[in-house]
């Protein structure tokens, strides 16, 4: 029973991790909490539905299309709403992000209506028994896709030039710029990657819970953001760990009888972690600079 819950938790956590990565990468470089990120995830899910229903495509093509669409969207949002504000006060881009978020939410409500849409079945609901646990085909696919994407991200960040530039910019933005790294390009790239991962998360969650709605990005976005902070914001492995940790904690919490307080679990964990380890599980401690 416990192992079943943990498996369910890991599946949920993998989707949180996919969204959390976008928050953490963007924060790492430009110290912006991109509150529109949850909406990108939501749009991703809708693009997935569109591909499956209107264009009659299978899972992989739909997933790819959603990722590509959101990549473009993420980069565009950064260009229009955040880049002009890079040298202004900390709050300005935050407010701008909220504006984008409201815009996308209402736009989607206008197009698709406020009611949740069912995700058409692209995967059969086969169940496999593995010892004491049952795993559905959907869960297997979520775990595989999420692992592959995270492995790809890891490879990019460690071995590809632009990925290395990304790490450099997140380490020290100004020095990276002085060293000839085109930071604008790096930031665009970061938004592209983060948005693509969120879109994948959106499609997978849509399939998992068989529901997509214009408001799905709000709670999921906030929780994924919690996951990013839990793991240590700015840290890529931290976001993965934080996502999984949060997914498992939430599933166990529900199983343990706290289902009414489900949405508070993430935030309670968040506050506890912040109090005892303000920079998260894998974050670096802050040294006071005088």
């Amino acid at each position, binding site marked *: 029973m416990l192992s079943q819950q943990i498996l369910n938790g890991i599946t949920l956590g993998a989707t949180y991790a996919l969204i959390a990565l976008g928050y953490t990468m963007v924060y790492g470089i430009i110290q912006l909490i991109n509150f529109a990120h949850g909406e990108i995830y939501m749009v991703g899910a809708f693009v997935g539905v569109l591909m499956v229903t209107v264009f009659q495509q299978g899972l992989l093509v739909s997933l790819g299309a959603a990722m590509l669409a959101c990549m473009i969207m993420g980069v565009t949002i950064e260009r229009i*709403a955040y880049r002009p504000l890079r040298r202004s006060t900390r709050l300005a881009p935050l407010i701008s992000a909220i*504006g984008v978020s409201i815009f996308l939410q209402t736009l989607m409500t206008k197009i698709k209506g406020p009611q949740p849409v069912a995700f058409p079945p692209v995967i059969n609901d086969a169940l496999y028994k593995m010892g004491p646990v049952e795993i559905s085909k959907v869960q297997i696919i979520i775990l595989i896709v999420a692992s592959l994407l995270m492995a790809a991200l890891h490879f990019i960040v460690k071995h590809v030039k632009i990925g290395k530039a990304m790490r450099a910019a997140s380490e020290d933005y100004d020095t990276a710029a002085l060293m000839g790294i085109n930071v604008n390009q790096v930031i665009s790239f970061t938004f592209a990657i983060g948005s693509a991962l969120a879109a994948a998360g959106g499609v997978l969650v849509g399939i998992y819970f068989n529901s997509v709605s214009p408001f799905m990005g709000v709670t999921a976005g906030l929780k994924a953001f919690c996951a990013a902070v839990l793991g240590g914001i700015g840290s890529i492995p931290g976001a993965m760990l934080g996502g999984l940790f949060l997914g498992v904690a939430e599933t166990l919490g529900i199983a343990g009888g706290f289902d*009414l307080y489900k*949405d508070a679990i993430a935030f309670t964990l968040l506050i506890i972690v912040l109090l005892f380890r303000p920079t998260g599980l894998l974050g670096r401690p802050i040294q006071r600079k005088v």
Partner: protein
Amino acid sequence: MDSIFSMFLNDYYIQVLTMLGIYLIGALGLNLITGVTGQLSFGHAAFLSIGAYTSAILSLKLHIPFALAILAGGLMAGLWGVLLGYPTLRLTGDYLGIATLGFGEIVRVVFLNMSITGGALGLAGIPRSATLTAVLFVVILTVWAMVRLENSRFGRSLVAIREDEIAAEAMGVNITTTKIAAFAIGTFLAGISGGLYAHLIQYLNPSDFGFIKSFEFLTFIVLGGLGSIPGVILGTSVLTLAPEFLRFIADYRMMVYGLLMVLMMIVRPRGLLGGVQLSRLFAKKKVQQTGTSACGGAN
């Protein structure tokens, strides 16, 4: 006095103006925390809801006089402000914001599951005691208090913390107690605002106090100009009235609202009246040169 108002304004406008006043009180509270003291709060709506539920329950269950119920709501919110502030105000910048955001969501879920608050069904039948006169009175009192703070020893220490925490500490400001005091006053005002809201709308639901509401307040103060009292008044007025004026585009108004927020930030990232102090507007001194061409607009 309410009868005088109703001679000139129809019920709808009175309702809108009362609401504006209520939001203004909450916004001035957040301005003290974020605009003046520089402590980021993403959980302001939680304190509104604490004040709203406290005062509503006192009115409904114990039939306590309106003014006392509102005051109790404010005090309860302020108390929670101190309880949250004590451990979290040592966190810096964004981390404080994140912690308050988490607190806001927890409060919402707790109210959703308590029986005394009516849970998801909400709390209905609250007496409509928040008249425009009453609200106006509180608004004037609040603005007066905030203006008095601007040039006081306490007020200066708040700004010093915003400007440079380490220097403020080195100059002898006890930053922990000062921040907590600012947080307590700001959340007290949020509680007052929430209590008045409950006694105007007559119905409370936890979903009205989600993080979107917290952000709405943040937008009020940032749009007008952080830390500036006329800025807060202008920002709150524009944003409370804008959806009303945008009614002609009906379904698209929230979309336009979102776009306007982005546009406003790009055009004036420091807000419409960024850096304008009420007391200095009348002091006829050379104010400053930090790019506030809209200064004249406030006169």
